[in-house]
């Protein structure tokens, strides 16, 4: 098996969403590659004691997103990667963010304030984009 799923009961995020996120994450980090097989529904169910519909729903959503393909009677396979094209952009964006963080710390902001500021800015700029 290429990856194993874990569930965080405290996160407030639904189990199906957690599985989707873990697959997308693994794809972004290159842990999952084209051709890899995801664990079968029965494997996941018997390991995590979760509802089979939850796993199927997660896999369906990944299929809709064009990331995996289900082959009847065989399993679910990765058909796309999510890394590569943004990696270069990520590097320079990260450098910019690090400069910003250094500036914030120099101005006396602690970690919590920085996180709160970051999150509320992400949220309000997302709202502006919608409006």
């Amino acid at each position, binding site marked *: 098996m290429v990856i194993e799923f874990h569930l965080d009961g405290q996160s407030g995020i639904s189990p*199906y969403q957690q599985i989707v996120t873990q697959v997308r994450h693994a794809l972004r980090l290159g842990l999952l590659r084209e051709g890899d097989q995801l664990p079968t529904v029965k494997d996941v169910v018997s390991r995590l004691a979760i509802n089979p519909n939850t796993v199927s729903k997660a896999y369906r959503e990944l299929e809709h997103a064009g990331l995996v393909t289900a082959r009847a009677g065989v399993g679910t396979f990765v058909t796309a990667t999510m890394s590569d094209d943004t990696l270069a952009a990520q590097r320079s964006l990260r450098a910019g963010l690090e400069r910003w963080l250094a500036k914030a710390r120099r101005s006396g902001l602690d970690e919590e304030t920085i996180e709160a500021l970051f999150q509320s800015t992400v949220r309000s700029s997302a709202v502006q984009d919608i409006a």
Partner: protein
Amino acid sequence: MSTAVRARDLGKRFGRRWALSDCNLEVPAGRVVGLVGPNGAGKSTLLNLAVGVLTPTTGSVEVLGSRPGAGPEQLARVGFVAQDSPTYGALSVEDHLRLGARLNPGWDESLAQARIARIGLDLHQRAGRLSGGQRAQLALTLAVAKRPELLLLDEPVASLDPLARREFMQELMEAVAEHELSVVLSSHLVSDLERACDHLIVLGESRVQVAGDIDDLLATHHRLTGPRRDPADLPAGQQVISASHTDRQTTLLVRTESPVHDPSWTVSSLDLEDLVLTYLRNASKQASAPTLEVLR
């Protein structure tokens, strides 16, 4: 999609006390349904009505499209494990399987044998000498091997330790994956149900407080915190489930189909336990409200 359980104005009275009232439900087939509520909320009453052990005082209940216990065919389609996983203490595991084979026309002997072997039960052991977890697994095996379309389980894990709980739920979920069962299981703990269920019915004070697919419930309930304001000026379509205020801050739990865009709110998601507890708190408040009025 077909319906596993449908209740219309269903009620059950014992003497002067209504154990269940005004119960309207529509549970689609193919779901694993969690029936959650405090002790005495009506969970066992609802399950016993669905099996046909009890008859309704008011209204009606249909299970897989027929009246519960309507005939041998209907009985064969529904599996039931009552509270505390009852088994016959003096009978061996093997006796239980033989009994299951004699009493159930659709008995799947190879499935029963395979499950007993996987759980690691000794066929010659008397049920009275099994651990709680083993007894629960034996009862589950009997219920699954009759190959029902719907499995009803009353507090199946309440008396089990955490490891036995997990093992029981693993076996149950595997059975669901293999045989496409519909399941209704009750618990007074949300945490028992969170991973296993995709549909939830919250019972409190003998009434259904909220019911629906868990993903929908989580997607439509939000916690809003922000500067103090009157909940009455919220946009239409945002139903306030609970509200609390300090001098400066207002915290609301709202149910809404559309996203909350108002930037003055900090919107956070709820976990299932918060959601269930909020509805149960409302239920007990409403139940005690008339008494308070009398006192005034």
